[in-house]
C-alpha cells in the first residue's frame, strides 16, 4: 500500500515536472475499449506521439468494452463532456453516421486542417466500410480484423489428414470433421465465434456475394430492409444444427462465445473460426500442438465464391463541439496514427489488419509474413476480389440489437425449437421492426 502510494506520488511529481514547461499544451482526449495487452500497446502509441512533438498531448482513457464505451460517449455528448476521439466498433457505425451533428467526419477534419490525407492509401475493404455514399471517409480506420480459420495440425495428422491443407469449403469442414471424429483424434470437429452474426450471416453473405440487406446492405439509406434469410444462410444454419447433433460442431455461446476458445485450446475441437486478432491469444494458449491457418470456408457449389470477407473491429470517430486548435491536434495525431511505421507495428503486435497499403508493404519488407506463416491469411482474404455492394460491409442502425436477435433465433434452431428457415424469417421480420424504429427516430 505504502509502496504504491510512494510510486504514485513519485509518478505524479515526474508527470508534473514533465508537464510544467508545456503548460500551453492542448489536451486531446481519446476514449478507447482496448483492455489488457492491447490497451498497453495503444497507450504506447499515444506516448510516442506525445514525445514526438510538444504542442499537443493525447490522453487515452479506457471506457469499458465497445458497448459500454459507446453508451458512455453518448451520455457524455448529451452532457457536453464528450472526448475529441472515440473508438467505436463496426456495428455502431450506422448509429454514429446517423448522428450527423455529433460527428466531425474525418475527411472534413483533414480538409479543414490542411493535412495531406489520402483515403486511397487505405485498403479498399476498410475504407468501404466507413465511407458514405458519396465516397467520403467518415471515421479513421484503426483496428480492423476479419475472421479466419485456425486448426490443430496435430489432430489433423492423427486423423490421417494432411496437416498442411486447411479446409476450403463447408463440405471439407464436414468431411474433415467426420474423419477426425471417426479416428478419435478429437471429440468435436469445429467451433466458431459469432456463429449467428459476424461469421454465419454477415461474412457468409459477403463471401458468396449475396445481399445481407437491401439498398447496398444499408449503405444506401435508412429505409433499407434485411435480406439475410437467403438460401445459403438457411443451408448453413440447418447444417450447423445437424452437425451439432452429430458432434461435428460445438456451440460456445452468444456473440464472441466465451466457451469457444477453451474448446480449441484444450484440443477438444480440431478447428476454430474467429477474428484474425485472436491470433496472439491462440498462439499463446495452444499448448502442445501446432496451429494451422486458413480462410473461412465457403459452399463449394457457389460460383464466384469466395468473393472477399468483410471486416470487424473499430474505427476512431472525431466528435463535434470542440475548439479549432484542438482539432488541429486531432488531425495531426490521426495522421501520425496512420503512418506506415505505427500501423505496421500495431498490426504485427496484435493481429489486426494493416489498414494502409504502406503498412502492409512495410511489413512485407520487414519479412514479417515470411517469419510468421499464416499471418497474411486475413489480408489476402479481404483482398481476394474488388469488393461488390454485397461485400463491402453492412451498415444498419441499431445493429447491436439486430445481432442480438440473430443470436436468439440461432439458439432456437440449435435447441430444435425452430427450423433455420423459420428462425431466419423471424430474425428478418424482427430486425426490420428495429430498423423502422431507428428510421423513425433519426429522420
Amino acid at each position: 500500500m505504502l509502496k504504491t502510494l510512494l510510486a504514485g506520488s513519485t509518478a505524479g511529481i515526474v508527470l508534473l515536472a514533465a508537464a510544467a514547461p508545456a503548460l500551453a499544451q492542448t489536451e486531446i482526449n481519446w476514449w478507447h475499449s482496448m483492455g489488457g495487452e492491447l490497451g498497453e500497446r495503444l497507450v504506447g502509441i499515444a506516448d510516442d506521439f506525445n514525445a514526438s512533438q510538444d504542442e499537443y498531448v493525447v490522453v487515452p482513457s479506457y471506457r469499458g468494452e465497445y458497448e459500454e464505451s459507446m453508451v458512455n460517449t453518448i451520455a457524455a455528448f448529451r452532457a457536453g463532456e464528450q472526448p475529441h476521439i472515440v473508438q467505436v466498433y463496426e456495428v455502431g457505425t450506422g448509429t454514429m453516421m446517423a448522428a450527423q451533428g455529433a460527428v466531425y467526419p474525418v475527411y472534413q477534419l483533414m480538409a479543414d486542417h490542411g493535412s495531406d490525407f489520402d483515403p486511397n492509401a487505405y485498403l479498399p475493404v476498410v475504407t468501404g466500410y466507413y465511407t458514405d455514399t458519396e465516397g467520403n471517409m467518415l471515421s479513421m480506420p484503426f483496428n480492423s480484423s476479419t475472421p479466419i480459420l485456425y486448426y490443430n495440425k496435430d489432430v489433423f495428422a492423427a486423423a490421417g489428414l494432411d496437416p498442411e491443407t486447411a479446409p476450403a469449403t463447408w463440405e471439407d469442414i464436414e468431411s474433415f470433421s467426420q474423419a477426425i471424429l471417426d479416428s478419435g483424434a478429437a471429440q468435436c470437429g469445429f467451433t466458431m465465434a459469432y456463429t449467428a452474426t459476424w461469421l454465419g450471416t454477415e461474412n457468409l453473405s459477403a463471401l458468396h456475394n449475396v445481399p445481407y440487406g437491401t439498398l447496398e446492405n444499408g449503405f444506401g439509406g435508412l429505409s433499407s430492409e434485411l435480406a439475410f434469410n437467403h438460401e445459403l444462410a438457411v443451408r448453413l444454419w440447418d447444417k450447423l444444427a445437424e452437425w451439432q447433433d452429430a458432434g461435428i460442431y460445438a456451440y460456445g455461446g452468444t456473440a464472441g462465445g466465451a466457451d469457444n476458445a477453451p474448446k480449441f485450446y484444450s484440443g477438444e475441437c480440431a478447428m476454430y473460426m474467429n477474428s484474425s486478432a485472436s491470433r496472439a491469444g491462440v498462439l499463446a494458449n495452444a499448448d502442445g500442438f501446432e496451429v494451422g491457418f486458413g480462410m473461412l470456408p465457403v459452399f463449394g457449389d457457389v460460383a464466384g465464391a469466395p468473393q472477399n470477407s468483410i471486416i470487424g473491429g473499430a474505427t476512431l470517430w472525431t466528435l463535434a463541439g470542440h475548439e479549432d486548435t484542438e482539432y488541429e491536434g486531432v488531425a495531426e495525431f490521426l495522421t501520425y496514427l496512420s503512418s506506415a511505421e505505427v500501423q505496421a507495428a500495431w498490426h504485427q503486435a496484435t493481429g489486426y489488419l494493416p489498414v494502409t497499403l504502406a503498412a502492409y508493404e512495410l511489413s512485407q519488407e520487414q519479412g514479417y509474413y515470411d517469419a510468421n506463416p499464416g499471418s497474411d491469411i486475413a489480408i489476402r482474404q479481404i483482398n481476394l476480389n474488388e469488393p461488390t455492394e454485397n461485400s463491402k460491409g453492412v451498415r444498419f442502425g441499431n445493429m447491436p440489437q439486430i445481432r442480438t436477435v440473430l443470436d436468439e433465433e440461432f439458439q432456437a434452431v440449435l435447441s430444435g425449437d425452430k427450423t433455420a428457415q423459420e428462425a431466419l424469417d423471424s430474425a428478418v421480420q424482427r430486425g426490420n421492426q428495429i430498423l423502422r424504429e431507428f428510421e423513425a427516430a433519426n429522420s
Partner: protein
Amino acid sequence: METKRTVFPNKLLPYLFVAPQLVITLVFFIWPATQAVKSSFERTDPFGFSTQFVGITHYIRLFQDPLYLNSVGRTVVFAVAVTAISMGLALLFAAAVSRLVRSSQFYTTLLVWPYAVAPVVAGILWWFLFNSSTGILPYMLRYFGVVWNANLNGTHAMILVIIAAAWKQISYNFLFFLAGMQSVPHSLTEAAAIDGAGPLKRFWTIVFPLLSPTTFFLFIVNINYVMFDTFGIIAATTNGGPNQATNILVYKVYSDGFIGLNIGSSSAQSVVLMLFVIALTFIQFRYVERRVNY
C-alpha cells in the same frame, strides 16, 4: 406499542431535520423517476438531437409485443421460485440452528457468509459450477443422464439463475428468521412440550404464526430483491438468454435502453416496472398485512 411523542417548540425545526432525507429522495429518486416518465412519452435518437412527443405509443407497443409479455412471464416464474426457495430454505436452516445449543454460532457464521457476496460474483460463481465444458455440476449430472447446457436450454438457464439468486438471499432471510425465532418466548414452547406437542407440532402451531411479521417483511424485501437486485446475476451469466429465456423485466430495461439505445421504450418499461412494484407493495400492506398476527 406506546411511544412518547416528541414535541418541537419551533415550527421550522422538524422540517430542517427531515430536509436532508427529502433532498436525497428528490435528487436520487423523484427527479430521475420524472425524467423516465417524461422520456417514456418521447421518441428520441441516441444523441438527443431530435425529440418527438409520441404519447403512449411506447406503452401500446409494449403490451402488443410478444417478447415483452414473454419477459413478464419469465419474471413471474423467476420471482416466485427465488422467493419460495430462499425463504423456505432459510426457514428450515433457522429452525435447525435454533435447536442447537453449542454450535449455533458456528453455523450462523457459515450461513451468513454468502450475503457478503455481490450478486455479480454469485452469478459468476454458479456460472463456473454449471459451465457445460468445465463445471463440476454438469459432470456429476451426466451420471443421472442429464446433458446440462445452459447456453442453449432455456430451462437449464432459468434453473441456474434461480439457484444463484436464491442462494445469495438465503443468508439474509436466515438471519431474520433466526432472530424472530429467538424472540418467541420459551415459556410458550415449553408449555406446549409439557402438553405433549412434538417439535413439528410446536413449530407449526406456535413458532410459525408468531413469526408472521418477519415472514411478511421478508416477503416484501425478497420481491424487491428479485425485481431489481438480481440484475447483476443475469448480466454476469446468461445475459437474458438463451433466446430470451431469462430476460427478466429489469434486465430487459437495461438491454433495450443501453445496448439497443431505444431510450423511449426502455423508459416506458422502467415506468411499468415501477408501477408494478408500487402496486405490489400497496396490495401487500393493504390486504396481506391485515391478516398478519402481530
